[in-house]
């Protein structure tokens, strides 16, 4: 009965290792980080200079395989990077040194830092979330830390980790359509055992999570995006689904070239703005950002505006809004792209005008020209590694990412014949009655 045994690690496609480019923005936009493959690039916007990261614990490259998650802490003092090399690196944003390297047993898929900056949590590919105590990581000394198990999604890939705005809950999303809300305990090293709710409603993998919170609703509501082309709004206390926005009807781009079968308008990332009025959504295959209006009093999300991203093919792989400036930072890119001169590619673009609802209503959001981006050409040179690109690479990158994502997260559908065959070859069918 191996085929039904509860082992399902989704790691069968060893050959597909392309990883999307990632972006993270310092909470006050003092710096911006981009990860492509094993390369972590940081630009100091404040000081207007490229940063060289220093890691005394490792010679040569900092990460040895694709980075899958990067994230600043709420205070901006720390940056965490982690991924396929099973290392979680914690960087001081003051010294830009690696202050701690944590070894994971498995590849790391998501990271989060508690709002008080005391703990880093990371999820591995087997569905376990780990917690590391940052005490003693004062930004100077290099510390080797050990992680403790916090919670587990049974043998599922965790795609996203998020703390609630009040820090009471840790939310984890997985490939099995599930979002789990767990009370974050006083002593996290003993594990987080009390589940507050499950947010169930997605009909495909959940790819991204973000909190919306406002002055009236400081505890916040959760928004999630998934492989089912929907963005959903949840009450995490009860796990109730409050509203669903379906992108499916909108995303016609890839369909027009007759490849409807493959098209699934996966939501690749979403993020919210500071006053909790807008959710910016990136969709696989769409060269635009969908802005949803979020009304917490009406418990609803609805389409506010679609911002097209003109110019060369630019299908964002990750998004982050800077709360302080209201700029939406977007990256597209991929590592290990085969058949091209430059196997890794990253392109950064920025949309302005998402600071608040008032800002949004007054100033139409628009895509900045490269020279209008804070940090300008210098920033782009550092984060992208180059200034100009061959158009063909972007299309190839978008295709490669789509394939990699569906291989990783979409469950195999067996045909009837195949299913029958699998049944016949199972050895648990001889039942004694």
């Amino acid at each position: 009965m191996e085929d039904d045994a509860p082992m399902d690690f989704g790691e069968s496609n060893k050959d597909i290792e392309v990883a999307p480019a990632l972006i993270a923005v310092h909470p006050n936009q003092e710096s911006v980080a981009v990860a492509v493959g094993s390369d972590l690039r940081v630009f100091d916007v404040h000081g207007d200079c490229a940063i060289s990261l220093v890691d005394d614990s490792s010679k040569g490259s900092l990460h040895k395989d694709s980075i899958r998650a990067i994230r600043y802490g709420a205070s901006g003092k720390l940056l965490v990077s982690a991924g396929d090399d099973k290392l979680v690196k914690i960087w001081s944003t003051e010294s830009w040194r690696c202050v701690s390297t944590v070894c994971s047993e498995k590849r790391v898929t998501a990271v989060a830092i508690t709002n008080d900056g005391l703990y880093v949590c990371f999820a591995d590919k087997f569905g376990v979330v780990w917690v590391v105590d940052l005490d003693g990581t004062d930004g100077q000394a290099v510390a080797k830390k050990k992680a403790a198990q916090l919670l587990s999604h049974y043998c599922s890939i965790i795609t996203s980790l998020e703390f609630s705005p009040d820090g009471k809950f840790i939310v984890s999303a997985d490939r099995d359509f599930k979002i789990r809300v767990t009370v974050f305990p006083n002593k996290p090293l003993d594990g987080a055992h009390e589940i507050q709710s499950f947010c169930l409603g997605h009909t495909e993998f959940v790819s991204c999570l973000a909190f919306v919170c406002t002055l009236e609703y400081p505890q916040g509501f959760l928004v999630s995006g998934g492989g089912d082309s929907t963005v959903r709004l949840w009450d995490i206390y009860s796990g109730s689904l409050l509203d669903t926005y379906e992108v499916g009807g909108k995303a016609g781009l890839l369909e027009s070239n007759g490849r409807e079968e493959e098209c699934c308008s996966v939501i690749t990332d979403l993020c919210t703005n500071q006053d909790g009025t807008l959710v910016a959504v990136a969709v696989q295959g769409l060269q635009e950002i969908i802005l949803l209006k979020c009304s917490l009093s009406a418990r609803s999300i609805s389409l506010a505006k679609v911002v097209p991203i003109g110019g060369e093919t630019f299908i964002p792989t990750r998004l982050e809004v800077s709360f302080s400036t209201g700029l939406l930072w977007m990256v597209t890119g991929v590592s290990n792209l085969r058949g091209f001169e430059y196997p890794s590619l990253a392109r950064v673009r920025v949309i302005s005008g998402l600071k608040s609802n008032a800002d949004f209503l007054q100033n139409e959001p628009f895509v900045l020209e490269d020279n209008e981006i804070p940090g300008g050409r210098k920033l782009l040179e550092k984060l992208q590694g180059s200034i100009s690109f061959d158009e063909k690479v972007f299309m190839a990158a978008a295709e490669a990412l789509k394939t990699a994502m569906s291989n990783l997260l979409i469950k195999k559908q067996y045909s009837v014949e195949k299913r029958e065959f699998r049944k016949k070859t199972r050895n648990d069918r001889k039942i004694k009655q």
Partner: protein
Amino acid sequence: MLENKANPTFSKSTGLPRKRFYRARAHSNPLSDSHFPIPISPHHVDYSLHYPQFFPSSDQVHSTKKVEFADIGCGFGGLLISLSTLFPESLMIGMELRDKVTEYVKERISALRVANPGQYQNISVVRTNSMKYIPNYFEKGQLSKMFFLFPDPHFKEKNHRRRVISLHLLDEYAYVLGVGGIIYTITDVEELGDWMKACLESHPMFEALTVEELEADPVVKLLSSATEEGQKVARNGGQTFQAVYRRIQPSS
């Protein structure tokens, strides 16, 4: 909810149903891990199919009656059958991974219903992987009893993660059990018995029943005698190891 935001189920270009929506909506649930259906959430389980006498018409799906007991890895269903007449007003469900075994239990229950009119209406079975989909079936605090009788031992260290009782899975069981709810475990494998006890003992949301409480609980006597596996062990004169724990409020 979202029906009027254009109809995305049909392709604009061909007018045919899009495969992905067809796949997702044709069946009550698309969460297809291997090839059994999985409800999207507990609200999506139609209990009128399982307990027709308790849910005479399907618009009473929202009736307040809920499943209270779950027998995890129920095997051939012996426990459910014993419990059925002991608690005739409580709904109970068996969860079993093997499809042929599940089919057998279904037939066994139908036959009992036919042979004993009015009885065995409160028991049913679903084929599912309980290690992944418990939250898809039960709401928070819904259950008052959970049973784990003679679970597969998975001896090898690297297979311990396959055991149905583990510290992490107990988090989910604590979630679906109401405060005061009871988890019953028994095995003939001493090592597994120690393991299950150790997990329950170290979990902050469970406490052991006292000897008096165990003696007063009529269900405890069934643990070693009601199931097929239990009877086999008894026939061979095997020893059994049980651990019975109560769901408590965690101290914060």
